[in-house]
C-alpha cells in the first residue's frame, strides 16, 4: 500500500490538468492510466482547437498533450502507465493492475477522469470487420499510422464525425458520404464546410440500414428517415464502401464512479450516466471528484478547465491553498469554462437555434448540405460587399455560427478582424483597414473558414488564398481545378504561391489564380492527376 495526497485516475486532458494544478499547490500526486501512452485522446487529435488563447485555441491537440505532460513532469507528478484501476473502495482506496500483479493505493482525495467511450448503433452487419468507431479510425491513423480503409462512410455528423472524416481524407481515403439521422448537421458548420468543398456529400435524415459483405464490409445501404425516425421505403441508396465509421456520440466511462458509490444520474444531455457533482466537480462522496467527459460529454478544452478546478479544490480541502486563493482561482476558471459553453453548440442551448445571437438567420444549406449557398453568404458580417471586393485584397470570413472561438481577431496585425469580448460573436471585417495579405488569419482559423480574395489581379483573373492541409503540397505553377463550396469543379486554377512557415503550424496558405467572377465561389484547390490534361 502506498499513500498519496491526490490520486488521479486517467491521464487525459482532465486528469493531467488536475494533477498539474494540485502539484503546483504542493501536493503529492500520482496519476494512473491504463494506456501505454498518456494524454487520453489528445495525442490523436491533429486538428487545431477552438476557443480563445487561454483555452489554447489554434494549437493542435497533440501539442497541447505534450505540453501538459511536460508540465506535469516538471512539477514532479508521478504518471503510472499500463496501470488499470480495477476497483475503488471505501476510504479512498484503489486497486491497480500492472504487469500481472495488483497493487493498492490510498489517496486523501481522488479525481476520477476516466473519459468516455464511443457509442455504437446496431444494424445488420455491424459486427463485420470494417465497421469501426470514428475514434478507432483516428487512433489507427494518427497513433499507429495505419489507413483504416479506402472508401469510407461516416455515420454521424457531429464534430467527431466531421473532424475524423476530414482526417480520413488527409490520410488518403475517399469519404463517400456523411450521413446523420438528424435533419441538421450536428457539428460546427465550419467543419462541415471543409468536407463539402472537397466534394463529400451530406445526407441528413438518413440512417444506415445494413452493411453488405460476408466476412468484411463490401458496401452499405443507407435509407432516408422521416420526422418520426421511421425509414422511408424506396429511399435506399447503396454506397460502395469498405469501411463504415460510427460517430454517434460518446458515453461517460462511469464504472469507477459507480463502484465508488457516488450518486449518479442518467442525463441524456451529458451522454448517459454521470456522477452528481457540485460546482467544483466534487461527487456525493467528499474528496472524490470527477472531471472531464466522465462528468458529462464535452470536449478537451472544457475537460482541462474542469480538471484544474478539481485539482484546486482538492488542494484547498487539504490546506495547500487558502479558501480565498481557491475562490479566486475557481472564479477565473469558471469564467473560462462558461465562455466555452456559450453559443449555439453550448450544452445549455436546447432549442433548435434558427438565428445567430446577432440576429442573422442561420444558413439552411450549411445545416442540410454542409456548405453555405451563394444567396445566403452575403448576410454575414465576415463577408465583404461587392464594393469592398473592387478595392483589392480582402479577407472573407465564412464563419456563420456562434461558436466559442477568436484567434482570427488576434491574428491580424492590421486589426481588420473583430470578434469582440464575447468569443462566440461572429467575426466581422473592417474594410477601411488595408489587408496586407500576410495570411495569418487564414492559418489561425481552426475552422479553416477564412480566405483572402483579390478580384482583379490581372485582366479577367483574380486570386483566392486558402488554408491547405494536404500532402503532397502542390508546387507554384501547378495547374489544377478550383472547386466551389460544394466541391464542384468551377474552373481550372493555377497555384500562384504557397506560404508555409513554422509559425503557421503545418497549415499552408495556397494562393490560386481563377477567373475574376469565380473569386467568391472557388474555395478549394484540387491538384490534377499525373499526366492529366486540363482543358
Amino acid at each position: 500500500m502506498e499513500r498519496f495526497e491526490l490520486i488521479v485516475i486517467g491521464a487525459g486532458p482532465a486528469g493531467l490538468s488536475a494533477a498539474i494544478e494540485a502539484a503546483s499547490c504542493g501536493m503529492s500526486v500520482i496519476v494512473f492510466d491504463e494506456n501505454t501512452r498518456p494524454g487520453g485522446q489528445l495525442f490523436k487529435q491533429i486538428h487545431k482547437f477552438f476557443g480563445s488563447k487561454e483555452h489554447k485555441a489554434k494549437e493542435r491537440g497533440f501539442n497541447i498533450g505534450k505540453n501538459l505532460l511536460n508540465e506535469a513532469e516538471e512539477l514532479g507528478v508521478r504518471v503510472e502507465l499500463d496501470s488499470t484501476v480495477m476497483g475503488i473502495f471505501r476510504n479512498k482506496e484503489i486497486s491497480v493492475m500492472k504487469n500481472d500483479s495488483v497493487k493498492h493505493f490510498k489517496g486523501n482525495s481522488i479525481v476520477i477522469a476516466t473519459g468516455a467511450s464511443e457509442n455504437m448503433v446496431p444494424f445488420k452487419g455491424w459486427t463485420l470487420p470494417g465497421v469501426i468507431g470514428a475514434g478507432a479510425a483516428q487512433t489507427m491513423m494518427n497513433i499507429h499510422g495505419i489507413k483504416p480503409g479506402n472508401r469510407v462512410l461516416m455515420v454521424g455528423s457531429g464534430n467527431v464525425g466531421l473532424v475524423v472524416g476530414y482526417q480520413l481524407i488527409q490520410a488518403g481515403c475517399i469519404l463517400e458520404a456523411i450521413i446523420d439521422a438528424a435533419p441538421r448537421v450536428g457539428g460546427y458548420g465550419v467543419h462541415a464546410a471543409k468536407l463539402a468543398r472537397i466534394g463529400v456529400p451530406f445526407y441528413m435524415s438518413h440512417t444506415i440500414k445494413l452493411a453488405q459483405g460476408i466476412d468484411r464490409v463490401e458496401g452499405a445501404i443507407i435509407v432516408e428517415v422521416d420526422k418520426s425516425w421511421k425509414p422511408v421505403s424506396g429511399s435506399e441508396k447503396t454506397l460502395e464502401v469498405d469501411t463504415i465509421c460510427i460517430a454517434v456520440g460518446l458515453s461517460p466511462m462511469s464504472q469507477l464512479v459507480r463502484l465508488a458509490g457516488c450518486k449518479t444520474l442518467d442525463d441524456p444531455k451529458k451522454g448517459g450516466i454521470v456522477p452528481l457533482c457540485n460546482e467544483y466537480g466534487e461527487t456525493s462522496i467528499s474528496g472524490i471528484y470527477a472531471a472531464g467527459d466522465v462528468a458529462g460529454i464535452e470536449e478537451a478544452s472544457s475537460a482541462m478547465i474542469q480538471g484544474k478546478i478539481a485539482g484546486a479544490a482538492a488542494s484547498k480541502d487539504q490546506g495547500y491553498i487558502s479558501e480565498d486563493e481557491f475562490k479566486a482561482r475557481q472564479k477565473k476558471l469558471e469564467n473560462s469554462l462558461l465562455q466555452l459553453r456559450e453559443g449555439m453548440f453550448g450544452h445549455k442551448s436546447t432549442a433548435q437555434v434558427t438565428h445567430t445571437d446577432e440576429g442573422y438567420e442561420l444558413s439552411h444549406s450549411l445545416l442540410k448540405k454542409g456548405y453555405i449557398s451563394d444567396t445566403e453568404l452575403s448576410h454575414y458580417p465576415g463577408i465583404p460587399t461587392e464594393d469592398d471586393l473592387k478595392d483589392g485584397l480582402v479577407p472573407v470570413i465564412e464563419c456563420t455560427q456562434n461558436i466559442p472561438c477568436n484567434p482570427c481577431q488576434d491574428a491580424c496585425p492590421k486589426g481588420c478582424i473583430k470578434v469582440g469580448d464575447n468569443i462566440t460573436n461572429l467575426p466581422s471585417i473592417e474594410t477601411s483597414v488595408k489587408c496586407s495579405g500576410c495570411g495569418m488569419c487564414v492559418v489561425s482559423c481552426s475552422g479553416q473558414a477564412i480566405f483572402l480574395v483579390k478580384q482583379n489581379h490581372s485582366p479577367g483573373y483574380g486570386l483566392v488564398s486558402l488554408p491547405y492541409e494536404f500532402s503532397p503540397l502542390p508546387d507554384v505553377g501547378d495547374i489544377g481545378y478550383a472547386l466551389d463550396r460544394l466541391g464542384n469543379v468551377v474552373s481550372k486554377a493555377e497555384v500562384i504561391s504557397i506560404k508555409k512557415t513554422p509559425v503557421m503550424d503545418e497549415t499552408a496558405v495556397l494562393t490560386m489564380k481563377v477567373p475574376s467572377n469565380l473569386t467568391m465561389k472557388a474555395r478549394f484547390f484540387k491538384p490534377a492527376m499525373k499526366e492529366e490534361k486540363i482543358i
Partner: protein
Amino acid sequence: MSKIIGRALKKDDFVEMPDDHIIICRCEEITKGEIRRAIYEGMYTMNEIKRYLRVGMGLCQGQTCNKLVKAIVAKELGLDMKDIEIPIPRSPARPIAMKAYADDGYMR
C-alpha cells in the same frame, strides 16, 4: 427493480422480429432475439438479463452494449430509458488475468 415495474409486465406471447439475429453484446455474442426472449421469460431488469445471458460480462464490461440493451428493455416493457437501471458494476472493472489477481500485493 424500479418501482415502475409492477404487475403490469409483458405477458403476451413472444413474437420473433426480423432483426432478432443482430448481435447486441459483441463480447459475449448475444443477439437481440435472445435478449427479447429473456424479457418474455421474466427477466425484467438489466441485472437479471446480465446474469441470465452474460450480456455485458465480457471484455468491455457493458460499456458498449449497456445502452443498446437498455433501449431493448425500454421498448419491450414500455418504460422510459431513464427509469431503467444498468447493471451494478463490480471490481474488477476491467478484465484481469487470474494470475494477476493471485498476486495481490495488498499487504506488501
